[in-house]
């Protein structure tokens, strides 16, 4: 079936990019109102167009749900053609809707949060650029254009994390994010080149990087699928902050809080999950890469959750929580439940954006105090922030019927079918999540106030521009998961059905893997395929799913209960836990497993040494400056001082050498002619 061409897709991208260009060029010359209007309305426009695309897509028959917009041919090189070309399929539709929707709310919130900042206009220019780049990433119909967005969000994260660059720590955090991402991007680029090498010449005259073409030629890609899958996943570990490249995300807290919300919820970190889901046709060919994705996801979820339990900075807790939740998403992709992964991406966007903006609201009220040890008792003073954050906490903990319950439960169920060990890790993390989120809420909003005496009377609820987005997201955190209401609870899981056409390759690829007797691990994707497609299988698994759901709900409630009891009534228990095992465990977790320190010692220091000794002192100062630049000058100088001896002003010496020269020439001529 021919895809339908709709020209407004390009405007979804161009509106925020245009806004960014306009605000960037006219920097510091526009009144605040104009800046706010331009920035938010462009994103709102994108959101409305996305909604239009969504409804246009829904009106089409299931098999033909594809809208395209080919803007122009970007790189026609011989046989290779790379287009700037956008498409909307069910997966992209989900992504653009929540990216633009959440980003719009963050824009509104930023109007209040950034009020009076010197870089107000610059901030909104970056923010619009960020949204535009993310939209390029999810709307692209080929890998190189996706890479443009991929690098674009990396650049914007650098700009926004280091937004208050006067403070050296902030710009260092920005640099760290940029460099760590660069490592991942290197892998991504290699994966892309490997695809090009595999398909070049075999897919004549076509855009071999387009997802549709790649999906049609999976048999050609199959022999190198593991290598490609792992290289692309390396890119995803950078962008989506997984082991071993997650270190940049907690530092990314240096940026303004709404930026954290944007990076952690709507954009950037979801890019890795989206890319893996988008390349699902490739990943199902390679059980090895899938297993790596699942294990890395589960381990990241566990490591980050344990660190989050011990952090005192409210934003750091949320940062590690994001890393942990991203681990869940990759776990889902790794066991073949791409739909569940994307579902969690979406619900997480709602409640994590809400949590960050709620934290921002608290920080704003407390004059940039981020340490939870100096908060407490804010419940009555900031009721809207409190209620909405409470909803988000229930959602992230996976309490029925909040959004997180549905997505997390689906991930855990699919994991259970694949591997009991990974499920056990995921299950434990669910309990930890409930516990540390409760700890955050208990320390911030409950108990006695530990706020500074000076500021305690000034604490007040944030302005409407900040609370309205909180309320909207609060509602979404409650109802956002209902579109994926599972079968075993009498729903129809419309989210899965909606995404099914995108992940149908999964089932085809699975059949191939079976054919190749490659099926040791293949049960993973098979289960996933069944869970996605055939209703009978879902009903058969209904009782297991129900049991798992009840178990994780019970664990979540237990985690919340323990959290409240410990941090409101029995602080001595927390103190005892800190001292347990001689305080070693607490020391290890509080120090974030010292990953930063290990990288510092293993990579950064040798890097400095290499740069200083080899590249600077030897190559630059020694070889280039010393030998090439100064060496040339010095050798000419020496030559000159020798030649200077010849010019001694003695007339007879000149005549003598002149004669000698003539004789030599004569001698030569006589001998050779």
């Amino acid at each position, binding site marked *: 079936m021919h895809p339908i061409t709709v020209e407004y897709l390009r405007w979804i991208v161009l509106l925020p990019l245009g806004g960014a260009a306009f605000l960037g060029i006219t920097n510091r010359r526009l009144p605040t109102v104009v800046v706010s209007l331009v920035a938010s309305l462009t994103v709102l426009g994108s959101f409305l167009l996305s909604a239009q695309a969504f409804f246009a897509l829904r009106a089409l028959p299931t098999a033909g749900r594809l809208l395209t917009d080919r803007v122009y041919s970007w790189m026609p090189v011989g046989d290779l053609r790379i287009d700037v070309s956008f498409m909307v399929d069910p997966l992209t539709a989900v992504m653009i809707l929540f990216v633009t929707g959440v980003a719009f709310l963050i824009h509104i919130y930023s109007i209040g949060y950034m009020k009076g900042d010197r870089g107000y206009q610059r901030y909104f220019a970056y923010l619009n650029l960020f949204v535009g780049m993310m939209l390029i990433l999810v709307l692209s119909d080929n890998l190189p254009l996706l890479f443009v967005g991929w690098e674009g969000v990396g650049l914007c994260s650098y700009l926004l994390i280091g937004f208050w660059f006067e403070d050296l720590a902030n710009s260092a955090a920005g640099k760290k994010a940029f460099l760590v991402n660069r490592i991942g991007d290197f892998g991504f680029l290699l994966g892309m080149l490997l695809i090009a090498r595999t398909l070049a010449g075999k897919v004549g005259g076509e855009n071999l990087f387009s997802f549709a073409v790649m999906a049609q030629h999976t048999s050609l890609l199959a022999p190198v699928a593991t290598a490609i899958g792992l290289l692309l996943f390396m890119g995803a570990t950078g962008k989506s902050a997984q082991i071993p490249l997650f270190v940049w995300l907690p530092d990314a807290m240096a940026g303004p809080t709404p930026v954290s919300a944007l990076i952690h919820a709507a954009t950037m970190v979801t890019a890795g999950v989206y890319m893996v889901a988008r390349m699902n046709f490739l990943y199902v060919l390679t059980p090895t890469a899938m297993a790596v994705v699942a294990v890395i996801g589960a381990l990241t979820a566990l490591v980050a959750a344990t660190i989050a339990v011990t952090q005192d900075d409210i934003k750091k807790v949320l940062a590690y929580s994001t890393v942990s939740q991203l681990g869940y998403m990759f776990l889902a992709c790794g066991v073949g439940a791409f739909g569940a992964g994307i579902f969690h991406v979406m619900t997480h966007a709602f409640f994590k954006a809400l949590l960050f903006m709620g934290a921002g609201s608290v920080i704003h009220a407390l004059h940039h105090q981020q340490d939870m040890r100096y908060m407490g008792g804010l419940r009555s003073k900031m009721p809207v922030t409190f209620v909405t954050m409470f909803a988000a906490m229930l959602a992230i903990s996976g309490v029925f019927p909040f959004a997180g319950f549905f997505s997390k439960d689906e991930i855990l169920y699919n994991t259970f079918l694949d591997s009991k060990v990974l499920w056990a890790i995921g299950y434990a993390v669910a309990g930890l999540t409930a516990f540390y989120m409760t700890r955050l809420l208990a320390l911030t909003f409950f108990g006695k106030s530990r706020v500074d005496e000076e500021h305690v009377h000034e604490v007040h609820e944030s302005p409407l521009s900040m609370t309205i987005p909180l309320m909207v997201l609060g509602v979404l955190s409650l109802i956002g998961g209902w579109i994926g209401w599972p079968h075993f609870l009498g729903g129809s899981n419309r989210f899965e059905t909606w995404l099914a056409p995108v992940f149908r390759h999964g089932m085809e690829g699975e059949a191939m893997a079976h054919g190749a007797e490659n099926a040791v691990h293949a049960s993973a994707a098979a289960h996933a395929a069944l869970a996605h497609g055939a209703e009978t299988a879902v009903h058969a698994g209904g009782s297991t799913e129900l049991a798992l759901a009840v178990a994780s709900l019970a664990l979540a409630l237990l985690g919340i209960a323990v959290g409240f009891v410990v941090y409101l009534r029995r602080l001595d228990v927390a103190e005892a836990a800190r001292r347990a095992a001689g305080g070693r465990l607490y020391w290890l977790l509080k120090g974030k497993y010292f990953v930063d320190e290990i990288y510092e010692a293993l990579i950064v220091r040798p890097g400095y040494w290499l740069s200083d000794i080899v590249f600077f002192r030897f190559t630059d100062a020694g070889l280039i400056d010393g030998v090439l630049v100064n060496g040339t000058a010095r050798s000419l100088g020496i030559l000159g001082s020798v030649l200077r001896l010849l*010019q*001694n*002003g*003695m*007339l*007879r010496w*000149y*005549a*003598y050498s002149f*004669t000698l020269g003539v004789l030599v020439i004569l001698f030569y001529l006589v001998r050779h002619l």
Partner: protein
Amino acid sequence: MFDASVGLNHYLLLSVLLFVIGVAGVIFRRNAIIMFMSIELMLTSVNLTILAYSRYLGDHTGHVLVLFVFAVAAAEAAVGLAILVELFRKRDTVDVDRFRQLME
């Protein structure tokens, strides 16, 4: 075996002798006037060569050329001697080793 008649080779031999004496004079003598005379000697030896070939080949263009060389040599000698007189007035010597301004 002894050919009493004077031929081309004799003229050329004499010419080479005169030229070498001129070169030696320029290189080995320090007196500017002697050097000057040596240069004239070299010019004369070249003239002799040209005339010898002119006669030998029966082409009279060479005679005309020699007249031109004389004219130029005379002009050059006038300028050169004038410079020498001027130098002697300033420095009371014509020893070329005492003049090293060419170095600068």
